[in-house]
């Protein structure tokens, strides 16, 4: 077995004491920045990059990768405990994770998200080891028209995310689309909605929007409640999920892993889309969708598995094709070049030690993260008992540092504050910000690919129906639309959208 031989080589490299140490350092740092809202892996890796120059390239990349997937683990902790996404990809975890915490099941939520993430990480590692090259080839089959259809499907699925009225959900998606349009249009070079502000020419960063509408506004809302805020930390019991919890969430973990892995491989996909889609899928499949948004364990298990799976599989296009799917992956490419490694298709053959060593270290890293996270659950839960008078200002400062560190731009901090205010208004009108964020991500990609597909077809729209991948995706989208809109199943729709 060639694969076993390769994995053997990988583990030989990854199991040296110094590589385990760097893996541990990366995972610890990743967890820390994951827990701290706003401070993301891109800024951290960029800051640490010069410090890795003295290391062996394999050790350096093992550590940097650990920061990235460690952040996915850590991001859920803040989401569950304080209803603030530690990372953008844990935005959906807030929906049910925080509710679980409110019902005294914080430990359970943290436990299931760690275990789900570990399962997803293991599966994704196996996928990378066994099937990275063919999977990457498959992802290349996706052309601009196929991407457009995928985004259409995503947007239609986005309405399912909504809790309250359908109209409000659609309004939020459209607002998200419009915000996504800010910045230079890639096709014409024209700056749109930039009001002659140079800071807006490249558009708004998703981190800025997410910190604003989820972070800042949540803090304002909490402060408003003042002394009357409910205290739910006393009732914490049963930190680890029991057998029935595991049985309930296992299918969600598996589905989340599959969906996350698939979206991670596609350039442009990644952990954010993975988490959103997994949550949507679980809600659609659930016998009792009304539980979602009120502390359904599947609503934590699925997105957490998905974002971790996607975080790992997004290494596939990087390691096999040299294609960066996310800003973090672009930075990893830079790190490789600085360490004298030319990333790209030849890396598997030219540097097998690096390729297989990194893969083996990812699995070790996932194991370390579970070991780190499970015993630490008690410590994280204790966070809840910290007085909000101290907790909130600290979080707010971390959010500001994080937003600033994305582009080193003070303007972004002001923008996040503006989005915080807007987010607070949304809470007052009981409008869910999650669909806005999805519209913000999908909108620009949809427009870009629509125009690119039409440019390539010289204006002929039939490309969307003649390419099999695109056609399939559009048919699924149409079916979904029928299910959402059909009057005969309107009653079911009510159940889906109106909760509480």
């Amino acid at each position, binding site marked *: 077995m060639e694969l076993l031989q390769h994995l053997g080589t990988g583990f030989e490299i990854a199991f040296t004491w110094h590589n385990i140490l760097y893996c541990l350092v990366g995972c610890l740092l990743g967890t820390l920045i994951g827990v701290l809202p706003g401070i993301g892996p891109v800024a951290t890796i960029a800051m640490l990059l010069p410090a890795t120059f003295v290391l062996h390239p394999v050790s350096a990349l093992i550590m940097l990768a650990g920061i990235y997937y460690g952040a996915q683990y850590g991001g859920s902790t803040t989401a569950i405990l304080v209803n603030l996404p530690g990372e953008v990809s844990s935005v959906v975890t807030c929906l049910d994770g925080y509710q679980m915490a409110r019902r005294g099941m914080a430990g359970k939520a943290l436990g299931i998200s760690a275990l789900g993430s570990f399962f997803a990480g293991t599966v994704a590692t196996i996928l990378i080891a066994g099937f990275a090259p063919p999977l990457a080839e498959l992802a290349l089959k996706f*052309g*601009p028209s196929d991407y457009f259809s995928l985004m259409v499907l995503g947007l239609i699925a986005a309405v399912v995310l909504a809790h309250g009225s359908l109209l409000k959900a659609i309004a939020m998606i459209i607002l998200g689309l419009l915000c996504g349009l800010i910045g230079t249009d*890639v096709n014409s070079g024209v700056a749109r909605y930039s009001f002659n502000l*140079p800071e807006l*020419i490249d558009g708004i960063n998703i981190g800025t929007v997410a910190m604003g509408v989820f972070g800042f506004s949540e803090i304002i809302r909490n402060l408003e409640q003042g002394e009357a805020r409910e205290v739910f930390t006393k009732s914490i019991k049963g930190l680890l999920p029991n057998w029935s919890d595991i049985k309930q969430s296992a299918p969600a973990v598996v589905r989340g892993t599959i969906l996350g892995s698939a979206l991670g491989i596609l350039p442009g996909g990644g952990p954010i889309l993975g988490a959103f889609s997994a949550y949507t899928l679980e809600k659609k499949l659930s016998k009792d969708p009304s539980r979602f948004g009120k502390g359904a364990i599947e609503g934590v298990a699925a997105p957490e598995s998905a974002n971790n799976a996607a975080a790992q599989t997004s290494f596939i296009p990087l390691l096999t094709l040299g*294609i960066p799917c996310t800003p973090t992956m672009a930075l990893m490419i830079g790190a490789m070049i600085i360490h004298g490694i030319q990333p790209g298709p030849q890396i598997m053959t030219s540097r097998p030690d690096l390729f297989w060593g990194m893969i083996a270290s990812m699995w070790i890293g996932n194991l370390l993260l579970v070991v780190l996270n499970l015993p630490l659950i008690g410590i994280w839960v204790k966070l809840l008992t910290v007085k909000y008078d101290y907790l909130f200002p600290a979080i707010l400062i971390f959010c500001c540092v994080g937003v600033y560190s994305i582009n080193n731009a003070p303007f972004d901090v002001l923008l996040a504050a503006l989005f915080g205010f807007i987010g607070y208004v949304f809470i007052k009108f009981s409008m869910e910000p999650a669909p806005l964020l999805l519209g913000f991500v999908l909108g620009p990609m949809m427009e870009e690919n629509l125009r690119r597909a039409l440019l*390539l077809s010289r204006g002929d729209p039939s490309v969307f129906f003649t390419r099999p991948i695109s056609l399939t995706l559009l048919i699924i989208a149409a079916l979904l639309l029928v299910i959402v809109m059909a009057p005969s199943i309107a009653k079911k729709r009510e159940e889906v959208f109106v909760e509480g």
Partner: protein
Amino acid sequence: MKRREFLVIGGAAAAAFALPARAAYPDKPVRYIIAFPPGGESDIGARLQQGVFDKLYHQQLVIESKPGAGGGLAWSQLNNYPGDGSVIMGTNLPHLVLQPLEGNVQYKTDDIANVHFYHYTPDAIVVRNESPFRSYQDLLAAAKAKPGKLNFAGSGTNTANHASHERFNHAARVKSTYVPFKGTGDLIASLLGGHVDAAMSYSTLALAQKGKCRVLAVATGKRLPLFPETPTFQEVGLDWVDGAYRGIAVPRSTPQDLRRRISSMFSEINRDADFRRQMEAGGFELVDIGYDKMDAFMAERKKAYTGVAKLMGLTA
């Protein structure tokens, strides 16, 4: 004489003769602002310079990334920094010429005081391995046989790649379509997947995708050692040696002698053997355009880019 005494006496002498304090430049860490996100070519080049800078001048070169507006955000703020050598900034051509013509940015080409250009990434036409075009001549024949049919991927609109594409269409007397992507990383998937016919990019792309891609022609003066089989554009009959230049600029208030000093420092970094090896392995072509050659170089570049800008529909 002990080192400390020597320094004290040296300092006293400097004060006595009122020598400019900057004779000791760099006497504190230098901020090096890069106008693009970390991980890109500008960042990589800067980080490779960083190590040599520390080694040669025993001062830290602190890299700060300030991305935005395709570099224009940082460049429009350059002249607000003090002109004491404490802040230098990475600059890029043809961006510095094309952006002001496009009109979205708040600086003029002549506002930027470039002191040194240290490398360029040569323009190159790249196709995937499965492409029917084995050579530049194949591509040219196809472009002439079916005018308007071929698609070239490139990074952005009104950018270096876009300009190169218009220049190619004009010089080779063909008509092909330019398909803009958000960045070079974005277009690789479409190139390898065969959704576009070729990419108008840099030789660095072909190096990164070695084994999956072929370079049909490069815009260098002589063939690249990394791609000995690939002809230059001059060999195939086009007068074209160009690419994306990267250099260093200082705030306009910086005095002339300090500009010269910084220029010669970066020339010296360029001569470092390790630095040369790393840069060449990464596909960067080193050049050494110092401050004394800057005016002539910029005048020549401006003329060339303004000509291409007319083809793109941009006017001064």
